Every structure is written in C-alpha cells, then in structure tokens.
C-alpha cells in the first residue's frame, strides 16, 4: 500500500473530520478504563477489550453485566443486540467499498463505528466516492481506534484521579456532530418523518435494556420514511396514468 499524494490528502482530511468525535470519545474511554479496572479486571483484560472488541457500548454493558454475575451467554447476546445496527451501517456503505481488495474490506468493516459511519456517510453524500476515498475512511477508523486505546489506557493508569472528566461535557461533541450530519440530510418530507419518528420512538424506549430503544427508534424511523416515500411514489405514478 503506497500512499499517493491524493491518498495522503484524503487521509489527512478524514482525520480532521473525525477529530471532534475523537474528542467526544475521551470521557467514555477514560471512564471505561476506570470502571473496568474498578470491577476487578486486570489491566491486560481491560486493554484487550478495547483492542479486540472496540465497541464502547458493548464494553460498558459487559462490565455492568459482569458485576451483576451474568453468565457469558447473556453478555454475548447483549453484544449482538447492541451492535446489530452496524449491519445496517455496512449495508449502507457497501457500494462504496465494493471495488476494494479483501484486506481493505476486512479492516474497514472491523473498525466500523457509529462515528466513522456518520463521517463516511456524509463524505460519500457530499463529495461522492473519489478514487482515494478509502484513505479518508481508513483515517477515520484509525483515529477512532487509536484514540480509544489511548484513553482506555489513561483510564486504567489514572483511574480515580481522572473521575472529574465526566463532568466536562466533552461527550456532547458527538451529539452536535451528528446533528450537523443529519440536518443537511433532511432532503424531503420522508426524511423528516424518518427523523421525527426515530427520535420519538427512541425517546419513549429510553428505559429499555441493551439500548433496545435506539434500535426500535432506528427501525421505526426507516419504516416510516420508506412508507411515506413509497406511498408518494405510487400516488404520483397513479396520477401520471390518468389523462
């Protein structure tokens, strides 16, 4: 893999675009490292989780379930449910990685997160594919991955001294970044309906375990938007048939 100038530029831009999301992940990484160490896991086990699982929400739930003495099967099931949305992410982005080799596709899949999905969806929507766009994608992945490792480590080492970080409000950077990605994507009425239904259902389902509310909200939004769009298409087609 030799990096041409175009690739280097894409890589740099991908990293810059991901930076706010890296900042918003800092408190989560630190708190995870602190919490997991406090739950009695060895530093090696805590680091291994961040290195090999690389899924913040699943890692947090696993620590919570460990503490309540849940069996392995429950922890694995929770991981599965929590991360099913990544199947939708991969399906949404797959057209853009089809031409890449299998090595690329493996890593771009393994490192796919909410954050990188949001960044790449926007990038492909605004700028199109581009011959070197996978470097942008890789930069976003590597930025999020190395950032997560570093702050997990800080959480393990500094543990209690760094507790204050959860009151800084850094995690809000994710909400504003996602807002900045969603608003321009509200192109027509079906997208507005999708967003409103998704937000409403996710809020109503906020108390459900394993972030099921998030999944239900996502699916309800997709279905509502699609239903309105299909209905409109059919009606318009019907009108065209009439004299």
């Amino acid at each position, binding site marked *: 893999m030799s990096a041409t100038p175009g690739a280097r530029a894409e890589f740099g831009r991908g990293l810059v675009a991901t930076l706010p999301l890296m900042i918003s992940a800092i408190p989560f990484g630190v708190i995870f490292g602190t919490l997991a160490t406090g739950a009695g896991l060895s530093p090696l*086990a805590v680091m291994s989780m961040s290195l090999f699982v690389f899924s913040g929400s699943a890692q947090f739930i696993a620590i919570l379930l460990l503490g309540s003495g849940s069996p*392995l099967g429950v922890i694995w099931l929770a991981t599965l449910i929590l991360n099913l949305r990544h199947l939708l992410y991969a399906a949404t982005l797959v057209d853009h990685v089809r031409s890449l080799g299998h090595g690329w596709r493996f890593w771009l*899949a393994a490192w796919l997160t909410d954050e990188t999905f949001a960044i790449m969806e926007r990038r492909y929507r605004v700028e199109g594919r581009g011959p070197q766009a996978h470097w942008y994608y890789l930069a976003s992945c590597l930025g999020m991955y190395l950032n997560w490792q570093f702050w997990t480590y800080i959480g393990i080492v500094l543990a209690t001294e760094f507790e204050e970080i959860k009151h800084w409000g850094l995690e809000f950077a994710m909400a*504003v970044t996602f807002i900045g990605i969603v608003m321009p994507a*509200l192109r027509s009425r079906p997208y507005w309906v999708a*967003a409103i239904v998704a937000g*409403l259902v*996710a809020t109503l389902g906020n108390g459900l375990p394993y972030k099921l*509310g998030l999944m239900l909200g996502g699916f309800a939004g*997709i279905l509502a938007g699609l239903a309105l769009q299909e209905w409109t298409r059919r009606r318009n087609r019907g009108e065209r048939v009439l004299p």
Partner: protein
Amino acid sequence: MSELEIALMIGGMAVINLAIRWPVYLFADHVRFPPLVERALAFVPVAVLTAIIVPAVLYPSEGDIQLTWRNPYLVGAVVAAVVSWKWQKLMPTILIGMAAFFLARWLIGA
C-alpha cells in the same frame, strides 16, 4: 469469573462484532440488495443517528426526561440544529453548538 472465562468473554465479543460487520463487505461482489431494500437503507443515517441523538439530549443523566430550556444539552442541540439548517456546514455547527452548550451550562449554573 476466572481468567479463562474473561478471555472467552472478550474473544466471543470480538467474534460477534466481526460477524455483524464483516460479511456484508466480504460478500460485496456477490450480494446486491433488492431495490426496495436499497431505498430503505437510504433512511439509515437519518433514522439511526437521530435515534442516538434525541435520547442523549433529553436524558443527559439518569432519571426523568429534561424537556426544558434549563437543560444545556437541549439548548446546545437546538442551536446546533438551527446553525446546521441555515449554513449546512459541519464545523460551524460543532463549534457554535458546543459554545452554546457551555454558555448555557454556565448561565444555568448546573
């Protein structure tokens, strides 16, 4: 849990995560989604990201919903949405949204 069980837990979680993400990319050459599914997938970013944002903003901490202007997360989110809607640019949305959040938090004294 024993050390072996911890290792099994981590290994299993890693495999599950990969099993969710990788197959779609791996079989990309052979899999084409039906048109209706393709049209449904176009709604994924808007629906899923909104489903992440809204509860995070309305429930900034454990407990009841905070649908009030005294919730700095809500103030920051509304400002960010307006900025994004008007200028359609990402960086100003992030910076002004964060600024509004910190300012609101300072004014409210939370």
